[in-house]
């Protein structure tokens, strides 16, 4: 191994060190870059893992591009058929499911929720991380504690409230409970704590900027990377969310996961149509993933998020 330190390299006599030993020492800062490359087996293992992550999507395209008989064949078909567009059309034209409406609804709900969570979280996160006020620690602990409370605990009263307000069945009923997030506040507080030096804020204050101007011109630009990651997470989790929209929305006005569930709820399930619907509902996030997957990866690794 090139990375292993032999005892000679660890304990050179500094005064009389031969030049090659010195070079070895001088190269130490680069040793991370010089770490040994892993072998063929490692890449083979990772390739197998990735094959496993892609396969179910491929399978769903396989079935979604076949016809009803593909599913009942005893031998396994490994290549897509030519029926995807036909199946996709019967998903989109299915009158009891409202798929077009579901696509529009999912875009509206996910966007509104992501924008509002990012906005309110940035504002509170800045205050928690960088401003002084009475009761700060207690309030922050409260925010963190609420993150551990399961969402299911509140759905019964939430449904009663939405019915009383005549909002059941509308998109507002899905959006309202999600417009703020304790997790978002925690995330932005942590980011501001590390990434925004107090000196910058003080400099702006000394120059006579008001508090809100300081927030707008100093804190907000500094928050952009973290805000983008938070927005991405909230968008994805809202897009894929099923439980609450399923309870509060009806079949005339569904979001995509609710519409998918409706596709399957018929007495006879035509999987070639259902899985074509799965592909249709996943493609938007797939595109988002290709564009911003890198940010998603570093977001998870920085913040250790689950939700």
């Amino acid at each position: 191994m090139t990375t292993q330190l032999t005892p000679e390299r660890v304990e050179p006599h500094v005064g009389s060190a031969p030049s090659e030993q010195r070079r070895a020492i001088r190269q130490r800062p680069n040793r991370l870059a010089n770490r040994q490359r892993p072998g063929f087996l490692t890449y083979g293992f990772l390739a197998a893992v990735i094959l496993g992550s892609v396969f179910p999507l491929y399978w769903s395209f396989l079935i979604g591009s076949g016809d009803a008989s593909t599913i009942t064949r005893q031998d396994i078909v490994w290549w897509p058929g030519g029926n995807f567009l036909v199946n996709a059309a019967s998903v989109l034209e299915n009158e009891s499911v409202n798929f077009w409406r579901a696509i529009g609804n999912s875009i509206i709900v996910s966007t509104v929720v992501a924008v509002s969570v990012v906005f309110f979280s940035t504002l509170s996160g800045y205050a928690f991380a960088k401003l002084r006020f009475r009761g700060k620690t207690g309030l922050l602990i409260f925010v963190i504690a609420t993150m551990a409370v399961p969402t299911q605990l509140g759905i019964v009263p939430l449904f009663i409230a939405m019915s009383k307000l005549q909002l059941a069945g509308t998109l507002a009923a899905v959006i309202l409970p999600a417009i703020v997030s304790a997790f978002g506040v925690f995330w932005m507080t942590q980011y501001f704590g590390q990434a925004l030096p107090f000196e910058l804020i003080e400099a702006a204050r000394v120059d006579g900027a008001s508090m809100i101007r300081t927030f707008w011109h100093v804190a907000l630009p500094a928050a952009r990377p973290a805000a983008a990651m938070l927005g991405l997470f909230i968008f994805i989790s809202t897009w894929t969310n099923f439980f609450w929209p399923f309870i509060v929305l009806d079949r005339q006005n569904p979001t995509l996961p609710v519409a998918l569930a409706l596709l399957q709820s018929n007495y006879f399930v035509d999987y070639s149509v259902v899985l074509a619907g799965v592909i249709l509902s996943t493609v938007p996030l797939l595109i988002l993933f290709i564009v911003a997957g890198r940010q998603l990866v570093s977001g998870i690794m920085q913040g250790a998020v689950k939700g």
Partner: protein
Amino acid sequence: MTTALDDERRIRRIAFSQKLSHWDVKISPYLYISPFFILFTVTGLFPLLYTAYVSVHEWHLIGGEGDFVGLDNFSFVLQQPQFWIALRNTFSIFLLSMIPQVTFALVIAAVLNENLRAKTFWRMGVLLPYIVAPVAVTLIFSNMFGDQYGLVNNLLGQAGIAPVQWHSQELPSHVAIATMVNFRWTGYTALILLAGMQAIPRDLYEAASIDGASKPRQFFSITIPQLRPTLIFVIVTSTIGGLQIFDEPRLYDQYGQGGANSQWMTITIYLYNLGWGQLNFGRAAAVAWLLFLIIVLIGLVNLAITRTIAASNDITATPRKSKTVQPRRQKVTA
């Protein structure tokens, strides 16, 4: 002229703007956090507390609030065999998904932690399933795990193994549902663990390999103990999420009742059936509270177990660490 008056006015203006600025500093923080707290109180906190109120009342979807009934809803639920079946299924699915998931995620993370080419590509690759909605994952897998024509049984048949009744039998249905959860979350968990692994000082590994520790030995004696906080985080969050599982069992067949004999009915499906099937909100709220208490309890147990397991493995004690200081010191002298 009126210079004295002007001065006085100017002084007053400065004093006023200072006062304004003072209030600006005092009040702004509260203004910034208040939207969150107001909205959270209305949409988050109020429903939580109100669940407790609903759970001690007779309460129906149509009739609305009825009489105060004390703990009747709780005792009714606890006497239902369905509740205990749901509890058992939930735990079975939870264990089948968490243990393999964390184990496999540890392996993937360890491999990703190697000095790979095209790091980002591999990391994105393992994360891909995360963007597939649980509903979509379930529809795909319930097709693959079909009892009659499913892919899995087809493959088993080709290998000469008798088909498994993935839907009609209890344990196989739990395995299938746990597989869906694992498919979506393993890569995600692996990335969290990878972040934890990267924070472990490399010196520890160098010292260990000087001492002749093999790679597996290093993994169990350095990586696992050092990952303790990350592991606790992963296990606690997946407990909170895992015990609430709904999407996968709900859509595992087209009827959504958790199977003809409740083979895979979970607590949250039971809650949903009480509330929106039988229209009895009082009892549904009682189940919500019971689930919450169970989650808190399990979270605490998990925490205790994880602590002991990780602590008993910890041999990264001081003598080894002190050795690793040497190279650094010499870098300075060189």
